[in-house]
């Protein structure tokens, strides 16, 4: 499944090594019984905490597809997976390797937005379908969208819009924002401000903090936010920065009598490591995996727990749904021809653990949603409570606005 191609013996001298790389790898003639190769690229060493649940998710999907007899009348789905080291230029090289040497029919994966964009551009150039699994940037389906690229997860815009709906109901008028200092943080804050101001012209934004990703100076940042005396805070930090922010914020009373609205914080990837120190009462987007009891989710969860002996995380669902979508698209296209697969993916309907989703023909964005609720601590563990499923389809701009943004 995780087939790796051994090209050369270690320690070979430079030229010898180069020539070895040059040796063409075994060809994959396209016989009917040949497996369908999908190239998968993600930041396995850069962000293992997020990408390993994701990998398990797609492994489960692929196993299910193959156990059910494969695709196109018996062809197995075979994934060639590679690390991108978290760097776009490495990802492009790996994509080329997958295309040239492994003869993959599709590409999938990526976590970081810039890596996703680089692979999307590569896919368009090489006319290869690409299902971007995790990158959140709006650009990948809008301003830098292309015919061959599809994205599964709800984008920054969608997630911000889901939270704005809740934020607008709050009495809070004075808002402060804290977000990592890069495109994801910037656009999350920008959309949040714009959408909230549209719904609530009476709010004002009184402070903003832009810590460098991974280097949040928690004390000074918390203090600076508190000094602005906001009624509520919009948080976009995540991971280690979030944990630091929460600890320092609790210690300095930042969250006392203030509502915090926070992007992604309800996902197990972020909530679990905080254990009993998970924030109380934050309004978040996330994935309350232990509580969702729709039939499709229960089936997924049971299969996942049985296979990996641990509960799924957000990434698991993304990995699973990405490869289920690929399988569905190939089946719908009736072939692995790139153009046909792209056409099949446009407007593809499928059932995901979160319920039915559609890859919109308009902008190739999937309508997969997220769960919006409040955080609380139960049995020494952060969980979501009072949540609801926010269907992605309801949190997208008008078709006309989207068409304007897309270059085609």
């Amino acid at each position, binding site marked *: 499944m995780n087939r790796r191609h051994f090209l050369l013996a270690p320690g070979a001298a430079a030229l010898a090594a180069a020539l070895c790389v040059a040796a063409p*790898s075994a060809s994959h003639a396209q016989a009917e019984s040949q497996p369908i190769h999908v190239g998968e690229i993600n930041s396995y060493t850069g962000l293992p905490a997020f990408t390993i649940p994701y990998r398990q998710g797609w492994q489960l999907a692929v196993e299910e597809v193959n156990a059910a007899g494969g695709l196109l009348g018996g062809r197995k789905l075979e994934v060639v997976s590679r690390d991108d080291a978290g760097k776009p230029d490495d990802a492009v090289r790996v994509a080329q390797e997958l295309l040239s040497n492994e003869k993959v029919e599709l590409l999938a994966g990526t976590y970081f937005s810039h890596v996703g964009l*680089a692979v999307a551009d590569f896919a368009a150039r090489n006319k290869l379908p690409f299902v971007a699994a995790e990158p959140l940037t709006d650009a990948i389906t809008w301003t830098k969208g292309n015919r061959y690229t599809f994205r599964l997860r709800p984008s920054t815009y969608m997630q911000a819009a889901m939270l704005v709906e809740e934020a607008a109901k709050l009495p809070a008028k004075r808002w402060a924002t804290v977000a990592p*200092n890069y495109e994801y943080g910037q656009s999350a804050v920008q959309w949040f401000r714009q959408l909230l101001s549209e719904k609530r012209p009476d709010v004002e934004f009184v402070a903003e903090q832009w810590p460098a990703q*991974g280097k949040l*100076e928690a004390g000074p940042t918390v*203090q600076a936010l508190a000094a602005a005396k906001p009624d509520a805070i919009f948080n976009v930090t995540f991971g280690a920065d979030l944990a*630091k922010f929460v600890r320092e914020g609790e210690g300095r009373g930042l969250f006392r009598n203030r509502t915090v609205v926070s992007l992604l914080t309800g996902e197990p990837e972020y909530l679990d*490591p905080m254990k009993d120190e998970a924030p109380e009462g934050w309004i978040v987007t996330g994935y309350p995996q232990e509580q969702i009891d729709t039939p499709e989710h229960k089936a997924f969860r049971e299969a996942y727990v049985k296979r990996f002996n641990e509960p799924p995380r957000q990434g698991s669902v993304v990995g699973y749904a990405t490869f289920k979508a690929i399988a569905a698209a190939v089946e719908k296209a009736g072939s692995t021809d790139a153009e046909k697969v792209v056409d099949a993916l446009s407007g593809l309907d499928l059932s995901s653990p979160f319920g039915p989703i559609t890859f919109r023909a308009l902008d190739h964005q999937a309508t997969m949603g997220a769960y919006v609720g409040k955080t609380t601590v139960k049995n020494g563990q952060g969980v979501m409570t009072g949540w609801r499923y926010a269907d992605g389809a309801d949190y997208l701009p008008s078709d006309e606005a989207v068409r304007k943004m897309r270059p085609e």
Partner: protein
Amino acid sequence: MSFYLVQFLSGLATAATLFLVSSGLTIVFGVTRIVNFAHGSFYMLGAYLGWTLVERWGGTPLGFWGAVAAASLAVGLLGALMEVGLLRRLYRSPELFQLLATFGVVLVMQDAASWIWGSEDLLGRRAPGLRGSVDILDQPFPLYDLVLIGLGPLVLGLLWLLFNRTRWGTLVRAATQDRDMASALGVDPARLFTGVLFLGSALAGLGGALQVPREAVNLHMDMAIVVEAFVVVVVGGMGSLTGAFVASLLIGQLQAFGILVFPQITLVLVFLFMAVVLVIRPYGLLGRAEDAPPTAASPGPPLIAAAGMARWVPALLLALLAAVPLVAGDYALIVLTEVVILALLAASLHLLIGLGGLVSFGHAAYFGLGAYGAALLVKHLAAPMPLALAAAPLLAGLGALAAGWFCVRRSGLYFAMLTLAFAQIVWSVTFQWYGFTGGDNGILGVWPPDWAAGKAAYYWLTLALAGGALLLLRRAAFAPFGYTLRAGRDSALRAESVGINVRRHQWLSFALAGSAAGLAGGLYAFAKGSVFPTLMAVPVSVDALVMVLMGGIQTLSGPVVGAALFHLLETEAMSRTDWWRLVLGAVILVLVLAFPKGVAGFVRDLWTRGRES
């Protein structure tokens, strides 16, 4: 008012951690002159060990502080082990070789930590008895941070006592000022170095373990701290503990108050500060000229222009490389294209390091400027590729000319850190200027036109352009330009007294190296189809440095061999295993121990020995 006081205290708490880590670094550097990249890894290891021990014993104050101390000592022992097992074998190598060795340690430790503690962030217990906060003028302030604030001066005081009131400390100070004198005093330098590595690493480990109650321990802690620790060391003045203390305080305050004025300045603040300090003060705040190390690269044996059969090796290699597309597939060609480009990048850096004795930590800036120069022309002016490729070395050269003017006025690690500061400034501007550079989402669609779009065509184009540039660099090394550069490195005193303007020559070399790197960057942009700020980030500078050192700095073929070896190794390891950093790190360590003069240096020695016998 109370707000500013609390903000000030927050800055002090930041400063305390910074000081603990950088004091260790400055002590190690002062005595051993080793640029210890692994220092950040020791910090991370301290945090992980601290987490494990605090989870076990941390229920009581005694248990907690015992756990912190134990973690610190354990990390110290590991540092001593690194000295005995690795660095000690390299004291006779060119000084920079030890830097390469510590980089290998960084890679190994990243994967080791991931293997032992798993990939998830670990949020540890809080310090018992110090969970709450106290009100300072009605503003709550965490108790634990108050303890940290006190710990900084306490450690400074203890170190002062150690260095001024004990025999060992006196010897270390003597060795800091004059290594030869120390050995003349009958001190065994090896034992002294082991002790110093122990102390320095233990301080890093202490800094790490103390973070357990403040933040989630994670696998990115090493890189996050090590660059900043170097900044503190250099701003304070190398080898100066008080300097490190003052610099930590200033940087802590700068971060506390800087974000109030410019919330978006977080990416570049410390580097801006360092650049300003170094431009004004050549040896940092409290450093003295005599403590500054000599230029890092010691003069090697004379360059030997290949004679006889060997003269045809480059031409033969070029012919062979040009023939590769006849047998190779697309992927092999793009990997080889990258190797050729990186060889040019490494060779351009080698011009500075190998010939000029100028170790740059920021060479990626010019690679990136070249890539962006090309990409911006394509994006904003729809320029054709030849024009964009011509602009790449030009923009990079201009950037190098501007930064170089400041940098060549400093030497040794001060020079290196100033190049890093400029690189980080360029990086952050590129990263944040969304309207012009596309910010961190980069610029897409920088593909070659149809005539060069084939993998073979682009490979040949790269081979021609980069090969030509490599040839020019090689000619320049043997031409008066390269001789003059080496003259300035060998003896600036003598060079100046025979009419050579050393600084101006270094400046021009910096620009030449920058534009060569820029050409490499331009070629890289079209090879990848997109450019991102990652191209000018620290890891690319470090990779280039590693390539040069792996090949060996004393030969002109070194960087080319190093680039090929490093890149092929990395791509192969990456496509085979998720533990590729471990593999790469282990290979680097083996290479360093087996070939202390670099691979090309080793081959040359074999060759020379063969001819002599």
